């Protein structure tokens, strides 16, 4: 599907155009929130050592590569991967809250971060047929910056509640965008 085709020519044109512009930004916002939120939680209730940071970055990148190359071919809707990422984030948050500094959970967190990383990989792979690469990366990155700054400020002002609730709310917006602008929740060919 090309970018021009994605913008429908019905009376829903303006809404579709809006969704079209906002959708990658919302996804970036979601990713910014969960990446920053998870980093804070791991730092404060698992370990703030460099190893934790490296585990997070490497696992996220590996997950994204898996998403781009492998998971995108699975017969799972894009929003399904969003749900998986959100669930992985939720499980990590609960585990970190209930069993802080549990070193043996390191492998569990690594796997959960890989699961989270799969979503952006699938998102980029599938949206490449809808959006121009430049616009897709630009919008997603802007959303990520807002998520990074927003999650940090939220954590300082509201505490953990802010970084627990905000990804759920943004994921809800992403899902609605996907459902409303039906073309986004595409399945693999």
């Amino acid at each position, binding site marked *: 599907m090309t*970018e*021009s085709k994605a913008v429908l020519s019905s009376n829903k044109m303006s809404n579709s155009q809006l969704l079209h512009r906002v959708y990658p930004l919302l996804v970036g916002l979601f990713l910014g929130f969960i990446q920053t939120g998870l980093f*804070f939680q791991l*730092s*404060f*209730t*698992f*370990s*703030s*050592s*460099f190893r934790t*940071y*490296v585990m997070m*970055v*490497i696992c996220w*990148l*590996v997950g*994204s*590569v898996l998403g*781009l*190359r492998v998971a*995108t071919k699975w017969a799972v809707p894009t929003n399904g991967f969003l749900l998986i990422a959100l669930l992985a984030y939720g499980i990590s948050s609960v585990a970190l809250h209930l069993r*802080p*500094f549990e*070193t043996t959970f390191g492998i569990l967190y690594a796997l959960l971060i890989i699961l989270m990383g799969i979503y952006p990989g699938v998102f*980029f*792979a599938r949206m*490449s047929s809808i959006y*121009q*690469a*430049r616009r*897709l*990366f*630009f919008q997603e*990155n*802007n959303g*990520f*910056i807002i998520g*990074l*700054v927003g999650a*940090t*400020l939220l*954590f*300082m*002002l*509201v*505490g*953990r*509640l802010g970084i627990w609730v905000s990804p759920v709310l943004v994921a809800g917006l992403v899902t609605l965008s996907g459902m409303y602008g039906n073309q986004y929740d595409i399945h693999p060919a």
Partner: protein
Amino acid sequence: MTTRPIQSISTEFSIKGYLASRRMAFAPLILIFFSGMNLILIQWVLVRELTALLFGTELVILLVSAAYFLGISVGYVLSKPIHLNHLKPLAVLTLIVHLTLPIWFRLMVTGLDGVGAYPVAFVLLPLLTPFVVSAFYSIFLPLLIDHQSGSLTELYSLELVGSVCGVAILVMLGGLGLQTVYILYGAGLLAILAALKIKRTWLAFMTVAAGLWLVVLPTLNTWSNTLWYVQLRNLPAGSKTLFSGYSAYQKVDVLETPYGKHYLYLDGLEHFGSYSGERLNVVMGQIPAALLQPPNALVVGAGSMQMEALIAEHTGYVTTVELDPMVGEVSQRYFTRYNHMDTLTNHRLIIDDAKHFLANTHARYDLVATDVPAAFSIQTATLYSESFYQSIADHLTPQGVLVVGLTSTFAPDDLVSRRIAASLLVVFDEVMVITAPSAGWSFAYASNDMPFGRAEVETALQARYETGYVIYDTLAVETVVGDAKPITLDSMNIVLRVSFDRIKSRFE
């Protein structure tokens, strides 16, 4: 949306014969892979350097990180109007600018401070960062996808693999210093220049020039570093940089004045060196150790490790837990005059996150003292939180004592020290706060069964030439704390305040 009909890179080069075709089909992959790798490497250098130049606080870290990622967006925008031919001079410029980046950023800030315009740096550096640091590398991905040099899936995967390699380089070689990281970074940029088909003579020239620059870099690095500290930190002329490095967590600097005094700076902020800092180690380490004679003591945070030496005189065994191995190394190497680590036999250093260490040890301590930076960032603020103090309390012996710096003078109008004291009051039955003029900060002794009283503390302070001190007992501490809330993981707005006040003070 219309797109310009642009010939794909691989097609363009396929007319030059099989070998050329093979080489150039490979070129986009080189561009993308090394872009991913170098983005990680330059982030490592830049975030630490800029954070130190702007006196690292949480807001500065956030500002620098946001500026870096904004640069990636700038690159995506630039990928539309930019032509492939423009990338060659841009890559040459990037090589020159990036390899000299720490030097000219320091000189710029030093110059601004020299004309009384240091606050301009808070605007100028974050504005420059997106354009001169990260934008260049993010041009390639959308540009090459547009030029049909590969699909988004293929090229983006490769960029991510490059990023993984960048992280791996930092893990394996980051500790070897800026020169080592820059050798690999420069090699990555030269590979990009080669992939952009820069003339071989130019490539050879750039390689030699970069090599020569990397040879003189350590000298210029320490020279500009010293210049910055002399100007911004008012060190006397003739001071020299003994060590400057980027650790996994921060920029670590050790400077020596012409009089032989050593200073330790973490992210540009003084951690040890002043007279008040030494006095703080006396009142927070030596005095409680002398009063307790503890068999087992723990110090959270290494710093100069002078506190450990002062405690070790009166204790059976002292353990230091420090997150940053580089801080531990420089402390053992450059501060032996203060910490006697070369002769101490009842001390050990553990590299670990203190929160993680306490959660996973069964050891009990008679004395725990903290030597950590103020709550400039969220990371350090957690070391003043109620949950951290609870974790320490769980590892104290029944009459064990925790000693904490309050990072400012304890007073009814000082929110930071009141909130730290409030955190202590939640966990401990007894909290004694002392303001000792020579130490600068107020500090607190906290215990569930304090083994010494006000009289003993007064005697110990007087024996160490401390005059004009103020001692608050638990009731007085509760009164001064008033309605101040304890610091918790869900109440970190203190960081925002400390951070904002720090930046504001630079404008005054």
